[in-house]
């Protein structure tokens, strides 16, 4: 198992607003972590884990929230990465990071099969995207709610 799995998962809890049991239940935690590691490469991912560990070390939830808002999201280096993680969780796709981010990090432009390209990593990524769940609905074409369920309040 990835030694940083717990760190990654706990940080995803902070940015998605969902408890870890829900994120685990999607089955895409490992896939998402692997994708992130592939996109960032070893040097950057190590820095990223260091940064988020400083956030997770704060015992108070509002302190963690404040740190993300004031330090992580405004960071030119990791702000776009975290935003993309939110996209990955909520919409089930990875968006190619912008040119200026690549220039800053000297990461290569992703090719047509590289992890960093704009793409839906797997069917499960689509099916488990959090947005529809958040709206108490389901992604079109997956997880149907059953005959007539739409005429009643969602469960």
């Amino acid at each position: 198992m990835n030694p940083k799995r717990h760190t990654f998962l706990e940080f995803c809890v902070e940015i998605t607003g969902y408890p870890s049991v829900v994120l685990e239940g999607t089955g895409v935690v490992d896939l998402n972590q692997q994708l992130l590691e592939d996109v960032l490469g070893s040097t950057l991912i190590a820095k990223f884990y260091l940064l988020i560990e400083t956030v997770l070390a704060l015992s108070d939830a509002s302190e963690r929230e404040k740190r993300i808002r004031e330090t992580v999201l405004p960071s030119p280096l990791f702000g776009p990465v975290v935003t993309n993680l939110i996209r990955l969780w909520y919409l089930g796709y990875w968006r190619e990071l912008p040119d200026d981010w690549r220039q800053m990090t000297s990461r290569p432009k992703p090719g047509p099969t590289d992890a960093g390209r704009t793409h839906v990593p797997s069917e499960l990524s689509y099916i488990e995207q959090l947005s529809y769940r958040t709206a108490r609905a389901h992604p079109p074409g997956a997880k149907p709610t059953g005959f007539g369920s739409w005429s009643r309040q969602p469960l």
Partner: protein
Amino acid sequence: MQAESDDQKKFDVIIVGGGVCGALAAKKISAAGKSVLLLEAGTKEAMDPGQYDSFISRYYTMGATRGSPNGPYPPNNSALSPNDSNQDPYFVQVGPQQFLSDYLRMLGGTTLHWQGTSLRMLPVDFEMQTAYGRGTNWPITYDHLERFYREAEWEIGICANVEEQANLGVRFPPDYVYPMEKMPQSLVDQFFMRKLDHAEVDLFGKPYPLKVVSMPVARNATPNLRATGYTPVGSTADESVGQRCQGNSSCSPLCPVQAKYNALKTLAAALKTKDTHLEIRSQCVASKLRVNACSGRVTGVEYKEYSVRGKAEYTAKFVEGKVVVLAANAIENAVLMLASGVVDDSGQLGRNLMDHPFVVLRGLAPEPVYPFRGPDITSGVESLRDGRFREKHAAFRAGISNWGWVGEPTGSVESLIGRSQFGKAFREQLCDRMSRMVRLGVMIEQLPDADNRVTIDPARTDILGNYLPVLNYKYDDYSLDAAVAAIRTVWPTIVKHAGIEDTTDFSSVPGGSQSVFQQGLRFNVTGSGHLVGTHRMGHSADSSVVDTELRSWAHGNLYVIGSGSMVTIGTSNPTLTAAALSLRAAENILKTWRE
């Protein structure tokens, strides 16, 4: 290259096109013992359960192009479908406006990605000229078609409520029931039903209520206890699946369980019939009808058979038939007839192309209505389908969407990201916004206009050398004035009664729409996928392409079926009417045999 018949066999009937109209005709004619050949331009992949499942996988992983109705289906440059960003452009749009509707060229046809709304036309829709001095009267009345509406409703499998339709002016024989009870109406519908109970609008000095009515749809629901002997037809992959709509909410572009009707079901049933005389040849694009110059009779169909999708290679073939039926849809039928030099004394061939111009209105309900669940349209505001106002502007109906706003959830997620939201606050705001989204799709009647037309140009062909459809198209004042009434009069009334926050925004033009300007108002219009006109039926050879039996005036053994034969479009989605006309034509074809 002139291909000779490679068939020992001469068929009683050759049908071009394996969509709903071709399938219904094929089933009825082959069941009567006639030998039928169905030529299909696209592949027959959808009939293969494994391939059908691969469309679903493709749909899940395709990302941004997911919204396009043709998106999940493999691109096919050998038999192109229009408005699909994954393949070569198909329509040659001459303007002044774009024709923004599409269809699917694959066995099963456009019903693979249709929505399944299956309203009958109103009796008055057949007599628009007499009633309102607009459009053209049909050569037949509603009552000529009524029996075939019933047949189509049972063949396709419609769930609906007779009383609610009758209240709108649709006539049924006593005791008639649809095969299935109406689809359960959504929470979104219930919200509008409550709020619009007393709402009415004034159009040219006359009040009209804004009545929310359940929608007849081609989806499996609870069989009507009075519909003796009816069993919902499940998926062609596995009949035990799809016997009820289970709320996948992806009917367009595809229903994973085929609880929504598609033409594969009719074809599968026809093929299963004992001693069937139906043969289907897919990947065979009909390119020309061969006509005997002396007798005027069509002797058969020339077609191009390709083995590899997207390659410029094909084998030219010819097959003979005693009767030829074109069921390739309004645009393709016109292209094929034009390519064949079919005689048309009326000058109407290819003309009078119609669609339902479509305007999207949206807002946020004051309370959660939990959209993004169930089939898209289970009700609509239906009370403006007819009225004296039709002397001045078009009638329209507003389908109530169960799928929130277009472009969601991406739109809301991006907007929250743009405001640096994350965590619990993000989650709460997203829930609040998405669960209150409401959207109306206003579908507007369009009059026949000879300048709206399909033509061909020898310089514009596809990789097999078949003609691309060249389209001239525009919206007229009659439709656009109705759009203005919907936006300026009807929508604000709904907004007020329902306490909706109006978020309709015409400042940018989303893909697939075009901007128009009418009565000082700028708004966006798109198409509905409803191809009507192009080979209208009529009383005489000098005013129409086909007679009341959908038989070509000039070529006695050529029938041209589907919505292209319709004279006007009214406000109902056209497929049920096209299906009824096709069943009627099939009956007439069999009758000529007996005679």
